[in-house]
């Protein structure tokens, strides 16, 4: 049996207690990594993920902290190192959405979304840097969105935060490459998580899924496996890449329907 690809590697998944983050934590553990499951408020859910990983024979720890605050992000990294013996992979996944038309949007709402989505990514990246640079090894995977590259009515703040993550991913890749640190992003299209529940409620999501070339949403595991690929040795010469996992959404022109 081949050795697990992420054996002896420690990974942190921010916002790892549910949705895509939970799936990434489980998939990283399945590939042999010890996983720190970060949560802001869902401690019980994070513990569930940890227990599920341990039951499957993996190693995991729940690490609380609001990564939109730099001091807390630093603590999350430190606790990961203390509890699991190091840090080699950071998955910047924690994110929120506060959808509204710009006309109606409370000015505070763009900042809230930016602070968590881009701020959390910036903070954990910076907080992990010293360890990564000292060991001259590290992989960072930012969970972005196709919204960061395209427009969508009602998601200006979310799309801007993801666009910032995409630009940041490229800059980090260029700055850190010489230190042996790779930085890439996954850009999911539509995956069935709590965050997009509003889109599902309307007609079970059919109005959207029929416009997707593959005619279905991504599973969280499909997004997670791409993140794990970018975190591991199979992508060793990749950095600064933005990989879409969107069933062809961003490949098509306009609404994609033939006349």
């Amino acid at each position, binding site marked *: 049996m081949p050795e697990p690809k992420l054996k002896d590697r420690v990974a942190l998944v921010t916002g790892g207690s549910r949705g895509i983050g939970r799936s990434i934590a489980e998939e990283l553990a399945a590939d042999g990594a010890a996983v720190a499951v970060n949560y802001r408020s869902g401690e019980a859910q994070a513990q569930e993920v940890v227990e599920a990983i341990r039951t499957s024979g993996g190693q995991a720890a729940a690490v609380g902290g609001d990564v939109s605050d730099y001091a807390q992000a630093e603590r999350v990294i430190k606790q990961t190192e203390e509890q699991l013996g190091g840090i080699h992979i950071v998955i910047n996944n924690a994110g929120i959405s506060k959808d509204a038309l710009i006309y109606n949007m409370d000015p505070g709402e763009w900042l809230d979304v930016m602070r968590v989505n881009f701020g959390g990514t910036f903070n954990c990246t910076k907080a992990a840097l010293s360890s990564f*640079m*000292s060991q*001259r090894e590290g992989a960072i995977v930012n969970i972005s969105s196709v919204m960061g590259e395209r427009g969508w009515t009602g998601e200006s703040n979310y799309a801007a935060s993801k666009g910032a993550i995409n630009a940041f991913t490229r800059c980090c890749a260029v*700055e850190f490459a*010489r*230190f042996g640190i790779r930085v890439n992003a996954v850009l999911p299209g539509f995956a069935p998580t709590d965050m997009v529940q509003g889109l599902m409620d309307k007609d079970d999501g059919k109005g959207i899924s029929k416009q997707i070339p593959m005619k279905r949403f991504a599973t969280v595991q499909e997004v997670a496996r791409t993140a794990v690929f970018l975190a591991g040795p199979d992508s060793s010469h990749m950095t600064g890449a933005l990989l879409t996992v969107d069933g062809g959404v961003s490949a098509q022109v306009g609404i994609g329907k033939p006349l």
Partner: protein
Amino acid sequence: MADVDGAVKEAVVEALALDDDEVTPDATLMDDLGAESIDLLDILFRIEKSTGVKIEASDLGEYIQGGIPDDEFSDDDEVISATGAAQLHKVMPQTDPADIEGKLKADEVMTLFTVANLVEMVKTRANGAG
């Protein structure tokens, strides 16, 4: 303790992708060898890994200025004072205070910093001083 001279030279060669013979003790890191801020960071992390001596990029400026307050180190136009020039001669013995006092801007002092100066700084730090 690793060979500091060799460790510093190796760090500079690798970080700047230079040939061994280009990295001489009297070469200035920025002007002669073309190092930029990210190169200096890379050099310092490489030195840390090979020697165990941790130097932050911000420590370089502090080491060069030797704890002398800004308003004594340079004048109102941020040109190096006599006190500043004497300090620079202490950490960069190759410099002549007469060429610096009243002539060099404070933000240009790093351009005089050589490979040999960095070796000396690492040795000073390794001995727990500086």
